[in-house]
């Protein structure tokens, strides 16, 4: 209940299934554990899932819809996380909200949330249609999530173009589901390549990690743990960078390069043959 100038950040991707909601949940928990007051807003009214990933699905009484229609006060709708009480969720309302919700409605909700938080994270729906535009209209800055795959990168570029026209700034990049071995074999776009193609500063990368699925199964984001798995550590690094800390980029494609890969790389760079 401190900050007058909360940071309002929309988390978006264009393509679905690249990890927006997982990032929102993990980032929310990590930022809260770093001592910030955080509210996450599920702006994916059509297909809401943020409640599920945070393990809060059984505690929802009111939603953003009820706040807008003044059926309840904002405090009644916010769901506090039990383990991390400085994190709360404003759940998405009914999918029918999409028919009447305007960018102004979203701005109203977010400015209410901003009064009582340091960070407001807005989990945007996939796509570039009205739902996304509503979510982006309410945010000052953005994080674009993408995977090192052609379709995800192309869709991210569309979103970045739209964010530029909406004066959302800064826009930073998170590359999710990186497979270090494939990158080393040059069978996957590298972190630098994606960052160059999209011309966005890199906020962080997240390695592919089975534990992400385990954690979503349980509704316990990886960043709840003190010694998280590789992806959890990546999410935590991203949270710290977002807060302005200088955290060096953990690039596993450099760390794990074995003898064979080093020799191959050397051969490649010296001969330029393949």
């Amino acid at each position, binding site marked *: 209940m401190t900050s007058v100038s909360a940071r309002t950040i929309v988390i978006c991707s264009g393509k679905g299934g690249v990890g927006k909601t997982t990032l929102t949940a993990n980032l929310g928990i990590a930022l809260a554990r770093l001592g910030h007051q955080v509210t996450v807003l599920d702006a994916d009214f059509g297909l809401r899932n943020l409640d599920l990933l945070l393990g809060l699905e059984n505690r929802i009484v009111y939603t953003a819809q009820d706040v807008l229609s003044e059926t309840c006060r904002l405090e009644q709708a916010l769901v506090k996380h039990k383990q991390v009480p400085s994190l709360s969720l404003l759940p998405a309302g009914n999918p029918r909200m999409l028919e009447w919700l305007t960018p102004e409605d979203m701005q109203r909700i977010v400015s209410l949330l901003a009064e009582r938080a340091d960070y407001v994270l807005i989990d945007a729906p996939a796509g570039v249609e009205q739902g996304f535009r509503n979510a982006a209209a309410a945010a000052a800055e953005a994080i674009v999530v993408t995977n090192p795959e052609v379709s995800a990168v192309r869709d991210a570029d569309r979103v970045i173009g739209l964010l530029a026209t909406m004066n959302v700034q800064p826009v930073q990049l998170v590359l999710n589901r990186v497979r270090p071995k494939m990158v080393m074999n040059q069978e*996957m776009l590298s972190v630098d*390549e994606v960052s160059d193609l999209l011309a966005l500063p890199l906020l962080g990368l997240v390695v592919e990690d089975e534990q992400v699925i385990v954690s979503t199964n349980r509704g316990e984001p990886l960043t709840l743990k003190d010694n998280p798995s590789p992806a959890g550590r990546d999410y935590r690094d991203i949270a710290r960078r977002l807060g302005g800390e200088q955290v060096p980029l953990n690039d596993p494609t450099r760390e794990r390069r074995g003898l064979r890969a080093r020799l191959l790389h050397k051969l490649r760079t010296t001969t330029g043959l393949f």
Partner: protein
Amino acid sequence: MTLLDYVNRLLGRQKPSGTTARQRLQLVLAHDRSDLNPELLEQMRREILAVVQRYVEIDLDSCDVSLETEDRVTALLANLPIKRTRPQPLPAPDDSDIAEEPDAAGGSDTPRSGDPALAAEAHGSSDPAEVALPG
């Protein structure tokens, strides 16, 4: 990666797919960002060639006009090898001629389907005319 892929890579027969992905994305993002569809780009290409041809004789077979993007700035790159200059510029054709004339030159491939590696090579070999597009 299977053993066969590995051998192919070692022999230089096959590019790694990550490289292919980057090159394909460079082209497709340039087109997406410029909002020029391939037909319009082709029409513009023909008209540019027609204008240049009035002043110099160009090698139509190795002409290359394409969009490239770096740091969110999209540039129109034209690489038009000159055979010889004309002592006198040819008269300006009618508008109707511009669209038709140079099409017979075998350059009807849109740059989108062209090999990006070749395009990059051609740019290195001579001075491409660069025209920055807004956005």
